[in-house]
């Protein structure tokens, strides 16, 4: 089993959309996928019409393996299951930070379902916290969507610095450009500069800004299910392909 985190220390960068479309694409390719909605502001569960689970409303979540596995819901798509988010998820990082040895707890919880899945995809909350650290430690790859703007460039630098400080392996970080607008000069310049500065940390993927991705909220389904030939769907597929190569 491989663990892939979808993470950004900046909000509104298309992280949840990538998680949802990536999870769907991986499952379509025949892998058994579990998408964990860990982001209280995210909505990966929403896009799959999975209602928040009542069973996750207390703090025993990561300590009680059975409660964890019982909360998993099958999606409408073959090979794809969802661990839905819950309102009290926002307390998770706080909760985890209070615990000693929290570093290994998430890993243990994930291991308990390992036999069921080929890939566990974590849609992570957008901050650098104990939960994030947990995720970084246990993940095999960390996908980081980056809008090609100066602000996002700084966030990406901060993430790399955080990895250096906490002695985490930078090799896990796989950045890709998100919400790219071809008409914007700034986008093109930022992409060129960042590719030069971080050649190994950035995949050759640029997901375009697209109304099809916005329409996911209307359809409540992955973009490939209603706009399979759109540029957005095609670049998510390329992202899936790149990721599978790296794993």
């Amino acid at each position, binding site marked *: 089993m491989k663990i892939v985190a979808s993470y950004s220390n900046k909000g509104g960068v298309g992280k949840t959309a990538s998680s949802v479309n990536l999870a769907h694409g991986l499952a379509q390719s025949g892998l058994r996928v579990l998408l964990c909605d860990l982001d209280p502001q995210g909505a990966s569960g929403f896009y*799959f*019409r*999975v*209602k928040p*689970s009542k069973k996750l409303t207390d703090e025993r979540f990561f300590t009680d393996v059975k409660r964890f596995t*019982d*909360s*998993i*819901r*099958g*999606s*409408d798509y073959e090979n794809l*299951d969802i661990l839905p988010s819950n309102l009290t998820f926002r307390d998770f990082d706080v909760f985890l930070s209070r615990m000693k040895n929290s570093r290994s707890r998430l890993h243990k919880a994930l291991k308990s379902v390992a036999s069921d899945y080929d890939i566990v995809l974590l849609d992570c909350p957008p901050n650098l916290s104990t939960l994030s650290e947990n995720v970084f430690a246990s993940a095999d790859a960390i996908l980081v969507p980056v809008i090609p703007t100066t602000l996002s460039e700084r966030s990406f630098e901060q993430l790399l610095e955080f990895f250096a400080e906490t002695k985490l392996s930078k090799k896990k970080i796989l950045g890709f450009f998100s919400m790219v607008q071809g008409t914007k000069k700034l986008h093109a310049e930022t992409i060129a500069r960042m590719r030069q500065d971080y050649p190994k940390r950035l995949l050759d993927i640029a997901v375009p800004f697209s109304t099809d991705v916005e329409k996911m909220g209307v359809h*409540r389904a992955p973009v490939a299910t209603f706009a399979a030939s759109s540029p957005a769907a095609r670049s998510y597929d390329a992202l899936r392909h790149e990721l599978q190569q790296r794993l």
Partner: protein
Amino acid sequence: MTGSERMTVFDGAELPERLDGLDLGKGRILLEPAAEEMEFDLLDTFDGQVAAKGALLVAAGDALVLLEPQGLLRQERAAPGFVSDLPQGPVTERLRRLVSPLRTLMRVAEGHLTRQAVRGVDDLDKTHLRGTLWVFAPICGGTVSLLEMAALRGYAPTLARLEAALAPVVEDIHDARGAAQALRGTGASAPVLMAPDETAFRAAGDIIRSQLAVARQQEPGVLADLDSEFLHDYRVALRRVRSVVSLFKGVYSAERTTELKARFGAVMAHTGRLRDLDVYLIERDKYLSLVPEAMRPGLGKLFDRLAAERQAELKVLTAWMDSDAYRAELHGLARLFEKPKRLAKGPEAERPALDYAKTLIWKRYRKVNKIARGIDDATPDTEVHELRIACKKLRYLIEFFTPLFDDPEVPRLVKALKRLQDNLGNFNDYSVQQAALGRVAEDLARDPGSDGVAIATSLGALVTVLHQRQMEERARITSSFAAFDGPDTQAGFRRIFKPEEGTA
């Protein structure tokens, strides 16, 4: 998590209508509009072994599908036959556990099949349940619907709601057995009913009629030589008829009893040799494994001869069974029991069945004990033979009168008796086989042919092994009886079967 993650529901023709749009509280059932239409064959053994194990074997399109409550297995379609002749696959693998290797699979029903995808969704149209609805409309027989439904992970409670919603409306088809009966148009075979106060005469007639019907149902299978068990079941049914005639003493007049025994005996006599040959051929592999490697080719040639003899014997039997004389005789015998006035009653005819049954069973039980207690390791084999016959008669009597003794202990007593019978039966089989092989050896001496020497040598080896086995069984007989003669079994027989004082 509550409830299971998959379910199978059987019903009649109305299930699709009941399902479509069925309200599940927070959701509903949707039938997908695209349905597959095709012809189907229901496959089973003649005696319905697949259905008896809770499964349906269906050939439809290019697939062979085994439907069981725990799920569905599928492999490429092939013509039905013995399981050992089916191509490898998950269905074949599973059938090995469900079906006797002696019975052939055959088409027992055919018709039209509609297959449709079914979903259970919630108020957001999120899928909770997925499944398939099968509607079998046979040419003869009644329509059967089958819904197999599985919950997506985490949605077992929705499945429980569906189960609860369907429970109050489903018809009397509850399982594969009921479904197969409906599709085959046979209905459940009605057990022989018996009241404690009905006459012994009536009880005898009821048993004989039902066994005669069973025998006649086997005839097409015997004539077509589908498998060996048609003839076997034919013989078992007729043997039961004969047993009723001879064991129910005094129910029919003495002359009638003698006549019936002779007539049924004459019918059975035609089938004896073929059955013997069937038994040898069924045991072919076992016999081969009993002798040393070097002897096997010779023995193989013997079996080839027996197989050829069987084909010849089959021709003789089927010619007879297909004759007007046979049909007239069976028809005549059946008519006797349809209008019981045609049968002269004996002195015991009017006795109440329960009272009569106890007398017969108790007497036979005591006879078994008497013979058995006289047997030690030095007793001649003829006595052992007699014990075997007595046990067999006791078993038949208990089985005939089963409906009268609704006592949970009866199956235990029968089981104890059966263990003793197994031992005695093995002893007898080994003895009979040695005698039969002796006759083969004599025939061989007259007409050795080119294989004569090889066969004779292997025969010698086989007889030696069989004799050894027979001795082993013989050595166990006293301890087998001691096990049967335990205080619990004694007390059970006494309590259930001993007649009231003064009536025995």
